[in-house]
C-alpha cells in the first residue's frame, strides 16, 4: 500500500480513537501504545467496530496479536495489509 494511503488510514484512526476517548486528536500520538492512550477492552472493541464499518475489515477474528495492535501506526499497517489482500 502506498505511503499516502497508509497516512490516510492513520489520520482516520487518530480521529476515531480521539472520538472514542473524548480527547483532542492532537493529543493522540501514532507510536503511543494503545493502553497508554487510555484504551481498555471496551474501547478497543469500539475501535474494532469502527474499523469494520470504515474499512470493511473484521479484525476481531484476526488473532488480535500485540504486534498488529500495539500502536496506531502498527494498526494502520495491519489495515493496509488487510485492504491489499
Amino acid at each position, binding site marked *: 500500500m502506498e505511503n499516502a494511503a497508509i497516512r490516510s488510514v492513520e489520520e482516520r484512526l487518530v480521529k476515531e480513537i480521539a472520538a*472514542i*476517548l*473524548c*480527547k483532542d486528536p492532537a493529543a493522540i500520538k501514532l507510536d503511543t501504545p*494503545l*493502553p497508554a492512550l*487510555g*484504551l*481498555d*477492552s*471496551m*474501547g*478497543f*472493541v*469500539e475501535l*474494532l*467496530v469502527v474499523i*469494520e464499518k470504515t474499512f470493511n475489515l473484521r479484525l*476481531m477474528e484476526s*488473532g*488480535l*496479536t*500485540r504486534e*498488529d*495492535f*500495539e500502536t496506531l501506526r502498527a494498526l494502520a499497517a495491519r489495515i493496509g495489509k488487510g485492504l491489499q489482500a
Partner: protein
Amino acid sequence: MNVRLPYSRKKRYLTGIDWVIAALDRMSRRATGGSNASQIVLELNGPFDAQRFARAMTEFAGLFPVLNGRSTRDWNLAPYWRMPRRSAEGGVRIAMEDAAPEGVWPALERNVNASFEQSGEHLSFRVVREGPNRTWVAMRFNHLIFDAPGAESFLDLFQRQQSGEDIGDRLRAIRLTEPAHLSEWKRKFDGGRLLVRMLRAFAGTKLAVFSRPSDLRGRPSRFRMAAFGEAETAAVIERAYGEAGYLMFMPYTLSAAIQAFGGAFQAKGGGGAADIIASVSIDLRTPDTVAANLFFNHVSFLLFRVPLSAMADRRRLLETVRGQMYDQVKSGFPRALAESSLLMRIVPLPLLGRLLLMPLKGEFATFGFSAVGKGGYASRRFMEADVTNLFHMPLVPVPPGLGFVVNRYAGRMNAVVSYVDGMFTEEEAARLEADVRRGL
C-alpha cells in the same frame, strides 16, 4: 416526535440507569434489608493518624451536600436528586476499631453489610487498625450516589487535597446538574426496540441459577478474594493478551468467572442444558472524564449467555465471549440500553423492580460482573501512609445475589466474589476462590 418538555437547568435529573440502580436498591432492601451498596478498601502500610483522617474527611465531605440528597419527582414527572443547601449536621460517619484476633476480613464484611443509619446517608467510613503500621480504611457507599470508578475518584480528589494540591479547578469541573432528557423521543424508542429484541433472544433460556436460602431477610453478603501480586498480575495480563487477544483483559477475566461459577453450579448438582447469563457493567465514561462525572451512575450493561456445555473448552468460551461482546458493541446495545432506560423513569420503583425480572421469570442473571477500570484512585499514598492494595467489596442485589469484581491497582490485581450468605458453604466458597485463581 418533537415534543420537548421544559425542565430546570439547575437540577440533577436522574438518568435511566440511575433509576434502575434505585430500583435495585429498593429490591435489595426488600429482599435482605441491605442497600445496593459497595465499599472500597484501602490497605495501608505505615503510620496513619485516624483522628486526623476523620477530621479531614468530615471537612472534605462537607464540600458536597449532594452526598446527603434523595430522589424525588419534579412537576414534569422526571425524577431528580434533591440536594440540601448544606451537608448534614455531624458530617460523614467514621467508625474506628482494632482488628479482632480472627483478622480484618470479618470487620470489613460487617461494615459493608451494615445499614446506613438515617435517610440521606449514602457514605460512611470504617478504619480498622491491625498494629501500629497496618491500617485498613473502608469507604462504604450507596450506588445511588456513586458507581465504583466515581467512588475511587472521590477518594482520589480527597488525597489530592491532602497532599497539598490546589483542587479548585477540579471541584469547579465536577458536574452536578443533568438535563431531564425529555426530548428526542424517537432515539429513546429506537433504543427500546433494540433492548426488546435482545431480551426476546433471552426469553425461554433455562438459566443456570444458584439456589438461595428461603429466609433472605437479614442475610449478609459474604466475600472471597483472590489477590495477585505484581508478578502474578503481569503474568495474568500476558495470558489474557495471548489467549483472548491484545487488550482483551475483560473478556478473559469474564471467561474465568464463567468457568468458575459454571463449575460450582455443576458441583452443586446443577447441569443439563442450562445457560450461564452474566450481566456485565461497563463504564460509559473515558478515563479522562471520570473525575468530572464522579457522582451518580455512568454505566451501562452487556449481557453474555454461555451454555454450560461450552464451558469446558476455554478457547471456545473465549471466542463466544469475545464474539458476543463485539456484536453487542456493534449493535450499539450499551448506549441503546442507557437511552431507552430514560423512558423507564416514569415507572414507579416497585413496579420497575418487577419489570426488570420479567424477561427471565423472576431472575436477572446467573451473576453480575464488573471490571473496574482505570481513572479512579491514582495515588500510591493515602494521607501519610503507603497504599499497598485497593479493592472493592460490592453487595450484589438479590436476585442474583452473586457477583464477581476484578480491579487493578498499582500493578496488582484483585478478584472478589460476593455472595449472599447461605448460597455456598465455607468449603464451596474456598473451592470457588481457588477455581477463580486457577482460571486466571
